[in-house]
């Protein structure tokens, strides 16, 4: 899905998920590793504020990813 959206729309798609090898396999070009399979963009164990902070950081990283020129599949770890 990620690959075909990018292909048909011609716009960058950043995928946030936890199992990086799967994102590499399906052909995502911009990858942000998520927190956990059941809550990729949050961490409920850190309480409401901590959860939001984790989500904010991941989304800021995702926004950096879509502004970054890449030549090949790239994992944005920070």
């Amino acid at each position: 899905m990620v690959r075909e959206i990018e292909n048909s729309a011609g716009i960058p798609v950043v995928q946030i998920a936890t199992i990086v090898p799967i994102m590499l396999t399906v052909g995502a070009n911009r990858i942000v590793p998520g927190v956990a399979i059941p809550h990729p963009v949050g961490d409920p164990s850190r309480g409401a504020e901590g959860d939001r902070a984790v989500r904010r950081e991941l989304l800021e990283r995702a926004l950096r990813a879509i502004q970054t020129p890449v030549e090949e599949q790239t994992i944005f770890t920070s």
Partner: protein
Amino acid sequence: MTRRVVCYINQFFAGMGGEEQAHVPPSARPGTVGPAMQVQSLLGEEAVVVGTVICGDSYFGEHLEEARAECVRLIGEFKPDLLVAGPAFNAGRYGVACGDICSAVTEKLGIPSITGMYRENPGVELYSPKTFIVKTSDSARGMKDALGAISALAVKILKGTPLGAAEDEGYFPRGIRKNFFHETNGAKRAVDMLLRKLAGKPFSTEYEMPVFKRIPPAEPVKDLKNATIALVSSGGIVPRGNPDHIRVSSAESYGVYDISSLDDLTPENFESIHGGYDRVWANEDPDTVLPLDIMREMEREGVFGKLYDNVFTTTGTGTAVAHAERFGQEIGERLKKDGVDAVILTST
């Protein structure tokens, strides 16, 4: 000793009806129904078709667990030595049903199973490692050939005849490699292959490499402050009650939901219906999968221009690659038309 065979077919091939009967639950009939009659005549003296189990394609797809359990039970009651399902040709739901039942019967009853499908049937990719899927044409016009190939393979298996390579036997590879002594050594075979390649002659590899599609990365967003960003997710987050009946697994559809008036996803307005992960956290706060709250916050702060008015969601578990690709193409075309600049896609 005469061996016992059970056939599985859908409501259409049982002569019950088309789509309007696709909801019928599993049932069993003694002896042969529909294509099972031809299977019996092709098996001849080698085996007897003792029963036929029938289930509607939609019923199977929509009640996967119950349908599978009930079909395995009904099939088991006939005490078969082998199951023949379909053939399903290029019918997606039927193919998935045939593949699923074959896999379950082989696993739970410990007997071999055979079905038949066209190469593009999503059932091939899902189930070819778990059962024998004979290659067929794309429609029931190829019934005669399909049943001939299925029955020939059935006889071989029932007699315990050693099988050759999948390619030679006419079924989709199961991902099994068998060791054997070749008459020529590897070095010679490799050079022979190279010479054939150089001469432009056909050759076949002895070790298939997986093929993953790749696309060149899209150009980055230049002006984030004025960019429209869309959220997409395969994490199964949908409005409460799942109004579009997106499947909990093996999804064949996605939903488009207007979030233009929402600032936050809560257990009151959204939920997770994904069948492939523990939904406790997603149901307490769907933002942990589909992060609307923080996206709205950043939109308000002017970090980026605008959050696109709709989210697209489906469940990414057991979803056929062909379906996922179609979702992506349709979503991509819509986003392009609506001038969206980038996508954040979350997956579980």
